[in-house]
């Protein structure tokens, strides 16, 4: 269904709730009365013709002096269309109804907005700060936010930190470390724990080995990427996007470039698109290697991980040749790519692909068929398709639950429609559909698909320029756009609000791990401690993506 038809249908049912339809925007938005938001959202979710089953993103935008806006990105996986809703709230006391009863994924998004913009959500069960410390003063993403001079005796100014020696120890105030109501043992798993893949903290309430409740405490890696982007030009934000997802930097690069190109209507040269796909798919293999290897390491097999590191070394060398970096690539540019791929690199990549495909088989011989490994993963932490959609899981985690959705095929971007590849969905290979083994095996099979795409892209790489002519003063007109790419951890989405200047007015990063964490909180009760480790590993959560 096109946007016009959707708005027509919405207007027919809830005409009185709609204030305005912003058709002129690149991604049209329906402005809804705050008090009718819940009814409209419920209609969008339940109407058989619309069925917006997943809430992709909730964003708060501060627009002084008059309003704070909250924007909801809804997506229908059944009908493959999108709806965006917007509510305008007063800046003095922004209050809107929580949608977490319709889409559980809204829970964390709303907490983040409460934390960073001060919007309160009525009916939210746990409206606490998410990323900032619980006793932080102010809401950093407000435009008139003034940084407090110090926090528990620690100066917030960089210069003052250099000059002053901090001796006071701040109390542990991040997540309220409340004592559990019943007499279970409370354990901190993290922030420094080998299985949490970064600086993440899980508060576990356990009954012996059995977990009763798990709460994720995030924010240890919160660098305020979105606030930084507001002070940077579009082009100079690119290297920061590398740090959002350090294992899949090519995809966050790509998403940001896509958003900027969509805003300015830039056509990317074909050779640049091929370069992007080649670099991205190499990066996808590297990221899946870390995911599958570290999952094996989490369940106790150390050797497979190091074999994947050995293979990844070659990918790093290739990306080094392609873009001059091994981890934080900064390869994409608005309108193209930074460097061309030379003939020798292509030859090296071909040779490596010939080498790599048998290596996947060997890896499978080493670990994937291992009886202990299979028993540790099969039928463990089964995620039903309903849960996966409700919690807005994306990428391999969503597909492993049997939902056939791949942005490369279903919302094509770049030149992906030209390539032949299969979308891997979970089949319940060794247990129920959507268990940890399915998520592992989906990633293994996706490596074969990436190899397929790489071979085609290398064969068909056309000649031509690698960058479109983009004005040095890149100033897209006031508009709003949402661009998404299929990253290794799922949808890497970039929602950019432009105001006509050379800096984005608001940039919002939507990452796969952010939505995967609430899923851990939901799935973990009743599991054993060792299963939690397998769950975190199989969802491929990395901390910088959660905190941004």
């Amino acid at each position, binding site marked *: 269904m096109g946007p016009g038809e959707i708005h027509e249908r919405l207007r027919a049912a809830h005409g009185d709730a709609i204030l305005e339809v912003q058709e002129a925007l690149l991604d049209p938005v329906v402005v809804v009365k705050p008090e009718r938001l819940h009814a409209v959202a419920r209609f969008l979710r339940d109407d058989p013709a619309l069925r917006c089953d997943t809430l992709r993103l909730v964003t708060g935008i501060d627009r002084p002096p008059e309003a704070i806006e909250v924007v909801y990105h809804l997506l229908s996986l059944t009908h493959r269309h999108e709806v965006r809703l917007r509510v305008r709230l007063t800046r003095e006391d922004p209050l809107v109804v929580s949608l977490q009863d319709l889409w559980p994924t809204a829970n964390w998004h709303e907490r983040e907005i409460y934390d960073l913009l001060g919007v309160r959500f009525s009916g939210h069960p746990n409206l606490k700060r998410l990323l900032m410390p619980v006793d932080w003063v102010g809401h950093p993403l407000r435009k008139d936010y003034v940084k407090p001079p110090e926090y528990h005796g620690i100066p917030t100014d960089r210069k003052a930190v250099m000059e002053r020696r901090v001796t006071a120890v701040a109390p542990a105030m991040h997540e309220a470390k409340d004592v559990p109501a019943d007499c279970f043992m409370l354990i901190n798993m993290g922030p420094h724990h080998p*299985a949490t893949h970064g600086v993440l903290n899980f508060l576990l309430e356990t009954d012996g080995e059995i977990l009763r409740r798990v709460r994720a405490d995030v924010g240890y890696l919160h660098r305020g990427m979105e606030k930084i982007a507001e002070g940077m030009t579009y082009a100079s934000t690119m290297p920061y996007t590398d740090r959002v997802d350090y294992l899949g930097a090519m995809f966050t690069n790509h998403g940001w470039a896509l958003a900027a190109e969509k805003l300015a209507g830039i056509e990317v040269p074909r050779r640049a698109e091929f370069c992007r796909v080649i670099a991205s798919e190499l990066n996808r293999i590297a990221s899946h290697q870390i995911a599958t290897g570290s999952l094996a390491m989490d369940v*106790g097999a150390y050797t497979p991980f190091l074999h994947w590191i*050995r293979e990844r070394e070659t990918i790093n060398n290739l990306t080094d040749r392609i873009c001059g970096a091994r981890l934080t690539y900064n390869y994409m540019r608005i309108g193209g790519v930074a460097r061309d791929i030379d003939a020798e690199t292509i030859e090296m990549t071909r040779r490596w692909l010939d080498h790599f495909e048998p290596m996947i088989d060997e890896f499978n011989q080493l670990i994937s068929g291992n009886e*202990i490994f299979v028993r540790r993963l099969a039928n463990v932490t089964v995620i039903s398709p309903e849960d996966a959609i409700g919690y807005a899981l994306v990428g391999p985690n969503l597909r492993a639950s049997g939902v056939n959705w791949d942005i490369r095929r279903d919302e094509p971007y770049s030149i992906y429609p030209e390539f032949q590849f299969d979308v891997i969905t979970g089949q319940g290979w060794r247990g129920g559909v959507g268990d940890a083994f399915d998520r592992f095996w989906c990633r293994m099979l996706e490596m074969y698909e990436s190899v397929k795409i790489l071979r085609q892209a290398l064969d068909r790489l056309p000649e031509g320029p690698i960058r479109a002519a983009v004005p040095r003063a890149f100033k897209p007109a006031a508009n709003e756009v949402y661009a998404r790419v299929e990253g290794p951890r799922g949808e890497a989405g970039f929602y950019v609000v432009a105001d006509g200047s050379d800096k984005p007015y608001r940039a919002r990063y939507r990452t796969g791990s952010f939505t995967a964490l609430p899923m851990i909180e939901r799935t973990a009760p009743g599991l054993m401690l060792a299963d939690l480790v397998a769950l975190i590993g199989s969802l491929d959560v990395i901390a910088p993506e959660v905190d941004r």
Partner: protein
Amino acid sequence: MNIIQQLADWIARSWLHVDPATWPAMWVVYAVMIAVAAFVTFCFVAIFAGPVSWIERRIAGRMQARIGPNRVGPQGVIQWLADGLKCLLKEDLRPSLADKWLFLISPYLVFTGMFATFVALPWGVNLIAADLNVGLLYLLAITGLVVIGILMAGWSSNSKWALFGGVRSTAQLVSYEIPSAFALMTVVIAAGTLSLQGIVRAQGGWPWDWYVFRNPFLFAAFFLSFTSAVAEGNRTPFDLPEAESELVAGYNVEYSGLRFLFFLFAEWANIYVMCAIATACFLGGWQIPGMTPEQVAATHGWANAGWQVLSIGIFIAKATVLVFFVIQLRWTLPRLRVDQLMVTCWKYLVPLALVAILGVLILMVLVPYRSVADYALRGVMVAVGAAIALAYARRIWMTFMADRELYRRMEGKPLWFPPYRLP
């Protein structure tokens, strides 16, 4: 009259010129001799635990497409000395809320449990510290001390992760004692003695004289006891007490310096001990092919010494092959979950061990010792064992060849190096 007492008496007679039976200060000589013997055994443990740690790290390096320690000494052979020295110089940390005395002594308890097993290991034709007539029972009992040490370490650290490790370890060790003991009972039944020297003497030098190839039930008992031993040694796939990806480091998470080293020391010594027990009980121990112990005893002088040394070499070689296998297991397999671990023990290993005992008893009645049927059975079992060993070697060789070919095609040089030309 054991060797130490004989030696002490000899010293008293020949050096001090007193009669050991009547001299009142004789206990001083005995005490000094015991201390010396303990020190010698301690050094013995050290020179087994140390190189095993180096071997393990080099093998792990090879299995994981990396190099491993190769800097200290030729090929890094004395890396373990450097590591030990480093650990000695580290600060000995103790958490302020730890239970002080339990925290301080538990590494020594663990180590003592491991160290004491060396007393009863039959190293050669005549080389054994104490040939106890309940040797096997002693080994099973003394390793129980390890459980107490580990539980103490986990509890006294005042850390929940350490407690998890300690409790897991206790559950695991106590459970796996049972199949381990049952499986070793088959050997006791077959040999008719609990003395380890007696068990070794009841076997022979050739593979068909070993207990493992005597009949199918002893063959099964070998694998059962070895699996249980791996579990008792906290080795992968049963390394739950120190599962580094779940419990960080388990019961030893709060330890540092020398005390931490003692835990590792005990672990590596334990690998050797469990392989030595398996060797003595199932793989013929120090028996020299073609030479009976009586023939060795009949020789004199240098010939006798040569045969003695050869027997020690044979024992150590067999045990080292098993050590290699344990290390390979560790770097290949993932870890079981706690419930799976218990299921493996109680549902599979314990009943199977009982079946093995029953089977050995029945076969002892049905098949007379050294009859034609007995030798036929042994021949079949040796063939089965050889087939398994061949399949194992072939798999490794095939993977090695495939890998070498792949890397040669991509990089123009092989990834692997022959053992004589290590990087």
